């Protein structure tokens, strides 16, 4: 146990409340995992097409690309919400009903998304970059584009409702968001309380940025929808791009900041060392609140009419956002593991890997976010390279590690099964290779989002296909493990 003092702050729930909450969390994780597996198959398909091992029409390729993008972002969103909600409810009273409402709104949204893409033929990418959804040259209908954007709007609304409940719970337990973030302690108005839970700090940060991110997303989705049916209404394309990337950047970033609570909560349990909050910790998370929201102009560096100061902010904050993970979270995880006598199980291996993936993934991100490098990396394969690194090696291992923890693996000296080991190493090697091939492709100027690759690029795509197949193999093991062991697993003590 991390510490008895922290345990004292925990909320008391009834036995049946806890049982129901655990079922809901498992549902989130299993849904997230299943969607991710399908999206990895979609990714594998795209790489095989680019590698000329598989032939499909360009329209189907871009539909798959659209579903892959939106599906991974959605699965990351729902899975990371499962992780955060599970830990946050230990410190603030959260409503199980609202948690489920968001889940079912999400599922309804997913059905709409699938319909718009595979029945309506929508292939305008998950970024729905205005005015593309309304200008497909007859490939998809206005209706398909509208259903796609409506689905995102609905999913966003579900999340907003959930965040309202989290906000209510945090206010009830801590009085204000600033207290929950530890700001009075940071600024010395009250003494530092090392038992203030890191999960509450992270949860509050996620709540603030994602609430604003989704609200902006809703605005831009509504403007897009109005444009679809009233083409005379033409919002400014650069403004729309700013809003879309603000929303997209915040939402996907928030998933990793939500999931890191698994590392804060679980590494202490497996090492017997506490993860204490401190001024440095509060300062890092306070800075993250602003940086995650203000860093998005690094997506717009090739939009030359952007004000110079915005691009400089984008570049500087991209470097800045790397510092908290390199100095606080990643560093803290290393200290906790160093000479701790930790038992290496699939759970702990995945959590440790996630810290590596996040910390190392910072570097290709920072490079691309420099204006002068962005000139030759923007919209090349470097970009998927950097976010596959983050997601495959950083975010997903947090979620998978948490799933393994919930299955009960890694406690009472239980050794990982041979299949888990095969899964872990296939995933590790596959994920690393997938990301590195993307990065190498980007460094060789290969553009992203191309259905057909030039002859010179095919070898890269073929190596990428093999790497993606390894990821899928590892993912199959994780999925089977989750499906067989997770539903019946009792609450870990």
């Amino acid at each position: 146990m991390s510490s008895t003092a922290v345990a004292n702050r925990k909320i008391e729930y009834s036995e049946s409340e806890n049982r129901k909450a655990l079922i809901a969390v498992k549902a989130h994780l299993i849904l997230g995992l299943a969607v991710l597996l399908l999206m990895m198959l979609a990714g594998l398909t795209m790489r095989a097409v680019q590698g000329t091992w598989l032939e499909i029409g360009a329209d189907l390729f871009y539909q798959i690309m659209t579903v892959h993008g939106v599906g991974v972002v959605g699965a990351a969103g729902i899975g990371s919400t499962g992780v955060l909600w599970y830990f946050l409810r230990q410190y603030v009273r959260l409503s199980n009903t609202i948690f489920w409402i968001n889940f079912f709104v999400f599922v309804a949204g997913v059905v709409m998304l699938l319909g718009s893409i595979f029945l309506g033929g929508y292939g305008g990418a998950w970024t729905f970059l205005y005015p593309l959804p309304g200008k497909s040259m007859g490939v998809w209908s206005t209706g398909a584009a509208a259903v796609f954007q409506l689905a995102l709007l609905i999913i966003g609304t579900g999340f907003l409702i959930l965040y309202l409940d989290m906000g209510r719970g945090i206010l009830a337990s801590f009085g204000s968001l600033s207290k929950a973030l530890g700001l009075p302690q940071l600024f010395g108005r009250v003494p530092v309380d090392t038992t203030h839970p890191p999960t509450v700090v992270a949860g509050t940060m996620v709540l603030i940025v994602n609430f604003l991110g989704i609200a902006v997303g809703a605005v831009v989705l509504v403007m897009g929808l109005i444009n679809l049916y009233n083409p005379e209404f033409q919002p400014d394309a650069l403004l729309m791009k700013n809003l879309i990337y603000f929303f997209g950047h915040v939402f996907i970033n928030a998933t990793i900041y939500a999931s890191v609570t698994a590392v804060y909560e679980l590494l202490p349990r497996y090492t017997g060392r506490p993860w204490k909050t401190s001024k440095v910790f509060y300062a890092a998370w306070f800075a993250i609140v602003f940086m995650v929201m203000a860093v998005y102009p690094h997506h717009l560096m090739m939009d030359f009419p952007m004000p110079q100061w915005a691009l400089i902010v984008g570049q500087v904050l991209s470097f800045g956002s790397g510092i908290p993970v390199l100095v606080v979270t990643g560093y803290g995880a290393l200290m906790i593991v160093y000479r701790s006598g930790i038992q290496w199980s699939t759970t702990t291996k995945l959590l440790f890997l996630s810290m590596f993936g996040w910390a190392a993934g910072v570097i290709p991100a920072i490079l691309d976010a420099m204006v002068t490098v962005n000139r030759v990396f923007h919209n090349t394969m470097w970009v998927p390279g950097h976010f596959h690194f983050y997601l495959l090696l950083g975010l997903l291992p947090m979620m998978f590690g948490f799933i393994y923890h919930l299955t009960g693996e890694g406690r009472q000296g239980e050794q990982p099964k041979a299949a888990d080991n095969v899964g872990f190493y296939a995933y590790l090697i596959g994920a690393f290779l997938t990301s590195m091939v993307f990065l190498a492709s980007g460094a060789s100027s290969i553009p992203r989002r191309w259905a057909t690759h030039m002859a010179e690029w095919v070898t890269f795509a073929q190596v990428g296909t093999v790497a993606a197949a390894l990821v899928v193999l590892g993912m199959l093991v994780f999925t089977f493990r989750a499906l067989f062991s997770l539903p019946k697993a009792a609450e870990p003590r």
Partner: protein
Amino acid sequence: MALIAAVFCFVLVNSKKVEADYSTVTKKWYGIRGKWFFFLLTLGVIITYLSLSPFPIPDQKKGYQENEYQVVKVDSYQWYWTMTPNTVEAGKPVTFLVTSGDVNHGFGIYDENLELLGQTQAMPGYTNKLIHTFDKPGKYKILCLEYCGVAHHAMITELTVK
């Protein structure tokens, strides 16, 4: 990246041996953390300064007179480019005035080895000024670098440099 991998491996190798007293671990490594933070901060300031001065994007308000620059007007549509003229000379800076007639596209200049030399977004309602000086004559390619629909990957044209 290799450095970070090495640090993680170091900790991995040193994870089994138990140092029961965690406070001696934290004392030692908190000290190093301060230096590490300071190092990153200094590195950040140096990189920022070196990479942003001069600012790598041409001034968009400047006129770029015809006698100093060769001016090429670029218009983009689903799924083709128009460039007037489509032949320029090596050695003298070219100003590309890039816009779009429909959705967002990306104007990427590739040399004969398919190496990307520079790019800018092509956007409806805006004209982006990209300046590039070609060192060598040859056939250059323009590729679309912003996803623009089902024939995005076929949106290719050629630029001749004499």
